[in-house]
């Protein structure tokens, strides 16, 4: 059976697109991109991370266009990204330079620089706040004034005390938990590796992967997919039992080399900053030493993604660790890099599943023909 070209859908498709537009506006309510950008921080962070494009305003626009559907918003933003020229590569960004907003450790209570809770849902009850129905701009302005007054000018004494505290323990430069564990010899030392990273947006991923390709794929993975696989790994489908050594949320400065002239480090161009979540998970593993002696050693799983996406960053660190284990006797799916890396991408996964909605009339007809033939044969057989 050959392919048969059919037509007749164009006008229905046009009406369907109109219907979609109608659905978006039928409530006669309008939401400005500025309002989305100022209020839907969590969704914007998710979309930017999965789109692999740090652009807050465009993410807000994509959310508006997609009526808040994250899978559609990510698709739109990725598509737009593909139309833009890549002009530069940044200088290497080191998270030691992070301007910290939040920094906690589940492994150690007392860490240099301290535990800074920042802004988090972790310490709140998950109860619906019905007062938000009545929220007014004037209320917000009043609250903001209170925050500002508390933070700086309310008490000179308190401010100068805090200033001193800041300069003593400038938390923007606090040592990383893994750095002092390394300094104590509790983690194996690592050397700086400046090999050029793979770029999966320029060259399709190849197996076995290099670490750079794994991390790039994980960081742009769909949060739910990455979390689900990370969860499976610690529930028994993976050989990892992590403790969060350190979780940081904060801003990183981005610099590029000045393209018009050769120059030194101080000639770089500052273009802005990105907010990221970073996680180092400590994973114990038993190492066999000489004469059958066994020893526990810690490895570090790494998670880093755009925005405040803490669950995703932790799950990424778990999967990073799972994929680094190469010589397991009975590896499960979460240790299989093809399984993990090829199924967590939001656009690829949703695109493939969505294609099932497209007409499969010919292939399905052929399946029906086979079924009819089989049925007929069975009937003939029974009648003999």
């Amino acid at each position: 059976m050959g392919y048969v070209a059919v037509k007749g859908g164009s006008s229905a498709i046009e009406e369907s697109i109109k219907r979609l537009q109608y659905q978006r506006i039928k409530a006669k309510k309008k939401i400005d991109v500025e309002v989305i950008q100022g209020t839907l921080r969590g969704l914007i962070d998710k979309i930017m991370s999965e789109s692999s494009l740090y652009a807050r305003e465009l993410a807000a626009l994509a959310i508006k266009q997609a009526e808040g559907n994250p899978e559609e918003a990510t698709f739109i933003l990725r598509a737009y990204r593909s139309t833009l020229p890549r002009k530069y590569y940044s200088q290497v960004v080191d998270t030691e330079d992070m301007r910290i907003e939040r920094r906690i450790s589940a492994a150690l209570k007392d860490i240099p620089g301290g535990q800074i809770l920042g802004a988090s849902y972790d310490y709140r009850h998950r109860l619906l706040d019905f007062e938000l129905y009545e929220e007014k701009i004037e209320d917000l302005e009043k609250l903001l004034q209170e925050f500002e007054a508390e933070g700086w000018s309310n008490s000179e004494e308190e401010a100068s005390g805090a200033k001193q505290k800041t300069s003593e323990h400038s938390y923007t430069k606090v040592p990383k938990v893994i750095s002092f564990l390394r300094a104590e010899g509790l983690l194996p030392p690592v050397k700086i590796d400046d090999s050029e990273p793979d770029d999966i947006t320029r060259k399709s991923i190849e197996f076995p992967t290099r670490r750079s390709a794994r991390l790039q794929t994980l960081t742009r993975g769909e949060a739910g997919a990455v979390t689900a696989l990370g969860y499976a790994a610690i529930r028994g489908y993976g050989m990892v039992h992590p403790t969060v050594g350190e979780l940081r949320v904060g801003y990183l400065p981005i610099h590029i080399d000045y393209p018009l002239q050769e120059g030194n480090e101080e000639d770089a161009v500052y273009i802005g900053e990105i907010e990221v979540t970073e996680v180092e998970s400590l994973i114990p593993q038993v190492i066999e030493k000489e004469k059958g002696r066994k020893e526990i050693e810690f490895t570090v799983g790494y998670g880093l993604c755009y925005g405040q996406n803490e669950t995703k960053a932790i799950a990424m660190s778990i999967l990073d660790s799972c994929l680094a284990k190469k010589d397991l006797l009975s590896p499960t799916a979460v240790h299989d890099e093809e399984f993990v890396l090829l199924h967590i991408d939001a656009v690829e996964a949703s695109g493939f599943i969505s294609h099932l909605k497209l007409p499969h009339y010919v292939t399905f007809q052929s399946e029906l023909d086979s079924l009819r033939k089989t049925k007929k044969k069975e009937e003939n057989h029974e009648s003999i």
Partner: protein
Amino acid sequence: MQRKRRTTILVKGSMELARTLAEEILERYQVQIIQEPQQGLVMVKMRDQSQHTLFYIGEVLITECKVQIEDTIGLGIIQEQNPQKAYYLAIIDSAYNANLFETKAWEELLIREEKKNQELEEQERLQILKTKVDFTTMSL
């Protein structure tokens, strides 16, 4: 003042300062736009803290503009969609590249803006420091 410090001050700082400096040049010199402000991407290269290898976290949206004053080209780059500021930054960069005398007087303004930026960050820092945990051991 070198470019890294200067661009940090101007990108973090107010539009007002960038406009003031750029307009000073526009009033006295012929500024030719070589490249209108246009969007582009910067790929961000990260150092992974676990193995100290490099990887790409993703791209950042930028607006870029190029101008020329006399024979000297200047470049303005800023994160997100910000064509006006990219244009002003390009003029300021070109003025520094051409070593125009006006730039000598800018030092003080830039240092004042830097102080303002630092104070804002300090204010934010003090707010965040309030969420620092002060562990005390409970007596049983």
